[in-house]
């Protein structure tokens, strides 16, 4: 009798770093109606060990006022910690480390998700982030392969490939064989494709500093790498919201500083000014320097986040002081909903309970911010009212599993 091999276990656990199903809408500054509508909701339902459960996703007509329970009875199942990307009436699912399939779903006339096409990414390539450049052009970052696939999301066919392996060596001098810059989060802004490069040195550890590669969307030609030593680990892999554009056209990049595991590395936000070709030397929102009233006083990085306009950003931030010792990843509730003011560089704790490590869903619904949390009061969708300043202590909607992605779908 042989148990699971150590390398396999390592591989599985390594994937846990990149948790949960994020979703990104198109324009975070556009007000959303607070009326019922068709939502995309993804949940992660663990079983007896991390990554052995499944993720489920579905379209549903949520009514946040009725306090109901959302069943997964009609949900699609996919690999744990799959990533999802929402645009209009389309959802693209990538299967993280656990599968090679890239699948597009779209809403049918009955308001139900149906599969609209798929392709296979190269085996073991780590298909992570997807970003649309247009209706017929999108990019897929292959984290393990150091490449980006260009594909047509309508037909789900690969049209081109961008090799990034010339960008890996410089940032990882300790491992000269490392030619993979580990691409992840991407953003398309003003005709440019911005690709955050993790420059992984070893599991969950990245090189000091931040690299963002820039390509021309029209030609897919490489232009340059923008670097900055102040912040590390740019982009929360799987979460395109961690690289966002504000009303001024400035591009912000969230750095997670190796998940807080490397002393000295700094998390926070860097900014590329509208029209600039380098990081703004005068702006760095250093989260590692923020003090809060939360236990331990410190925070590290966001599990899920969304820019709401007017300099406000909402999300669940990790609070190391809320870990028990040793950490209990099932019972610890250490991801606290907060609001950042990007201009004043301040953090405000919201009156919404903290969730566990799978709690990453964030959505903006009119005046409300919706949080997917596995909190002590139960797993479900919680809300914070931006006008009244009130938060829910109980889930508005209870879910089967932890809601890791919430987004409105356009019919």
């Amino acid at each position: 009798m042989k148990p699971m091999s150590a390398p396999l276990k390592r591989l599985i656990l390594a994937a846990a770093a990149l948790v949960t199903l994020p979703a990104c809408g198109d324009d975070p500054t556009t007000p959303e109606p607070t009326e019922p509508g068709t939502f995309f909701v993804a949940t992660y339902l663990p079983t007896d060990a991390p990554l052995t459960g499944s993720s489920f996703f579905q379209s549903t007509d949520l009514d946040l006022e009725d306090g109901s329970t959302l069943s997964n009875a009609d949900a699609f199942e996919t690999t744990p910690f799959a990533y999802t990307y929402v645009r209009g009436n389309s959802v693209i699912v990538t299967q993280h480390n656990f599968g090679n399939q890239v699948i597009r779903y779209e809403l049918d006339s009955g308001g139900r998700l149906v599969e609209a096409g798929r392709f296979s990414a190269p085996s073991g390539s780590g298909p992570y982030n997807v970003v649309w450049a247009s209706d017929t052009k999108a990019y897929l970052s292959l984290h393990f392969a150091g490449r980006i696939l260009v594909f047509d999301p309508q037909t789900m066919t690969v049209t081109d490939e961008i090799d990034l392996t010339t960008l890996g060596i410089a940032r990882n001098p300790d491992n000269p064989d490392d030619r993979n810059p580990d691409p992840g989060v991407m953003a398309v802004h003003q005709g440019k494709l911005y690709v955050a490069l993790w420059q992984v040195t070893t599991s969950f550890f990245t090189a000091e500093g931040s690299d963002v590669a820039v390509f021309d969307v029209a030609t897919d030609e490489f232009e340059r790498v923008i670097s900055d030593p102040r912040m590390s680990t740019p982009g929360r892999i799987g979460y395109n919201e961690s690289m966002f554009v504000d009303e001024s056209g400035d591009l912000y990049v969230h750095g997670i500083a190796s998940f807080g595991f490397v002393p000295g590395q700094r998390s926070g936000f860097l900014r590329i000014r509208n029209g600039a070709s380098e990081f703004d030397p005068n702006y760095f929102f250093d989260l590692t320097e923020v003090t809060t009233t939360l236990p331990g006083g410190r925070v590290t990085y966001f599990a899920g986040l969304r820019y709401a306009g007017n300099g406000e950003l909402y999300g669940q931030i990790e609070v190391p002081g809320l870990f028990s010792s040793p950490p209990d990843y099932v019972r610890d509730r250490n991801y606290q909903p907060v609001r950042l003011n990007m201009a004043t560089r301040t953090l405000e704790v919201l009156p919404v309970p903290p969730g566990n490590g799978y709690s990453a869903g964030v959505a903006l619904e009119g005046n409300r911010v919706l949080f997917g949390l596995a909190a002590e009061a139960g797993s479900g969708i919680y809300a914070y009212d931006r006008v009244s300043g009130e938060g829910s202590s109980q889930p508005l909607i209870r879910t089967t599993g932890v809601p890791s992605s919430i987004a409105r779908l356009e019919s």
Partner: protein
Amino acid sequence: MCGSAGVGAAQEVGRIAGVVVEASSGQPLVGVNVSVRDMGLGGTSDSEGRYAVHHVPAGLVVLEVSAIGYAARTRTVRVVADRTTEASFELEVAPVSLGQLTVEGRTTARELRESPFAVTVLEARDLAGRALTLDDAIGRAAGVRIRRSGGLGSASFFNIRGFEGQRVQVFINGNAADVVGDALTLDDIPIQLVERVEVYKGVVPARLGGDGLGSAINVVTVEPEDGYVDVGLTTGSFGQQQLSATIVRPIGPVSAEVTINVDRARNDYVMESPYEPGLVVRRDHDGFERSVIGLGIGTSQLGFDEVELEVALIDTGSEIQGVQANVQHAESWSGFRSLLLQASSEGARDGRLDIRSAIAIVGARAGLVDTSTVRYDWGRNAFPSPVGRGELGYIPSDSENRTLFFRQRNALTYRAGDPRDGIFEHTVNLTGVFDVTRFRPSDPTANEYAGRNVSDFPGDLASAVVGLSHEWRPRGEGVVAVTGLRGYAMRSRGTPSTFLNPVVEAPPEAETDLLAAGISEAIRVRITPQVLVKGSAELARRLPTSEELFGDGLFVFAAPTLRPEDSFNVSGGLQWDGPVGDVLHVEAGVTGFWSSVRDLIRLGGGVAGGAFTNVGRARIAGIEADVRADVSDWISAGASLTWQDARDALRFEPGTRSPSPTYGLRLPNIPWLFGSAILEASRVGRPGRDSRTRVFVEADYSAEFFYAFEVSRRQSRRIPEVFTVGLGAEHSWPRLGLSVSAEARNLANARVLNVLNNPLPGRSFHLKLRYTAVPSLR
């Protein structure tokens, strides 16, 4: 109505008599034992092969005939009061020539089946001629599933009554086998060296010194006492080659034994990728090599019935086959060295006292080599490893993890009371097992790449398990009750993982002490000579392992406050052993079981790692049935079916009062309905006078089960339903000691998986040649 009714003094009695001859020559056999099953009656054949048994109660009885070197026979005869019933026998030379061992094995097997425990016994006669690995053979027992990830040498685990992995105890000759990590597996034991396999379901006898939640596998190896030669050669599909040779020779007052076993396999079967629809690939990096060398000497000259000294050397090397990714370079290896000294004395003090004592010292090494600078997709396109080196994860590896293990095991059995029909009323067994383990992992390559220590976290563990059991037979053979107590003590010291531990201050070293106890009661009542009723209950415990307590030095953090898992198991059933109508002999049983499991240890996942925690609860109910029948002198058939329903019993989400959405749902990734069947025909003297032919067809079925909790009608991650059929034939020339067997498995080339996304081989063919000789019998 009671178990001893058949031997009451007032019954009418008759006589059985006949002649025993050798089948091939017709020569009378002297000294053959002929006994009446369950009645303590019997006789021995004289120089003319004649025997007689007197005072046999009238009615149907089962005669058992056994002689060293010959296949044992049973026959059901009807005894008429005051008359002589004729019953003569032709005995064949034992086809597998395990000589006395085979005969003793059969006897022990029957004793075990008639014990109060729910136990399935696989006998040497069922195993030796098969071209199977031991894991696969055990997986065919009623109520057992073997779950594999690939071909020969791949990772595997057993499922019994819903329990899997470390919750099912595995013993080799009564010694817990899972003490040195991956370095020793049951597959390392050549199937020809197995005398029997005992599969305990539910209550495990306290004499087996280990911890678990119920159910155990105990492999008992042969101990030939005389000159003995056994050579087997197996070849099969996908580059499978296995050579096994055992020689035992008496040298003066000692008996010397040498065993050599070499296994090789390419495992290059074609698989349909579960990750890419339409992608069909031939596995090309799944090679496996293993060598086993065993040396032993034994003597009865040192004041014990037997004193043995054994040395075992096992080395393995495995390529790592990717399924999702195309792994081309990563390999694992292990080396195992053991020294075993054991002494036993049986039947001292007028048959009342048995003493067994053993000391084992084991050194084991295991490692992973994963340093490739490139990875490949299935099109053989290379791309750089994400961190420069390694195909499997984020950290390259060239590890050597060393384990040093010491065990002392002592067992004392004392029988008290007046023997009745040769059976003592009270039997008390006290077994103590003391283990010390030192674990010293090392991976300088990983440490160098990580820029810090990510692997070299040593651990020490000392444990003691004491089992005390009392077997009570108040009415001779009629009723047997066994009460068992187990006590566990463990002291463990390790270095918690700090690599990714987000807690600011982690202790450099932690120590954990654990105490636990378990209790069991098992009763068997003989309703009629053929019908047994069994019932048992048990509170079982499983202690956390070192890895669960201290992590793996990398992604699994320390959890030194873990509690033992516990399970309350109840089991009851009926068993039949005797003729049914015109069917000569039928063994059949049906057993129901129920378990309530608490504090299941699960790995809780975090952002970048996890720690084990006591979080799970489960209820398991099930029923299993099996039947085996000798339909005629030459045809036998068997079948088994198991239904086990494991449900999530965690009412609230962990750490909350919020109802759990999975409460009451079937626990995922556990087989719930499975069974097997075999039809076998065996003829002697056909086609050659001194030969024996056996053919069989067998089928295996497992219902589809879900990988995750079943919450959606669209759920796609499933382990599919499997139905396979196999054919086999064995032809042997007993007097020459030769046999040849051929098997075809999965004839329909069905797509088989029993671990998600891990395709198993399709249709395969296997051929086995075997030569066996017992010189002293010639």
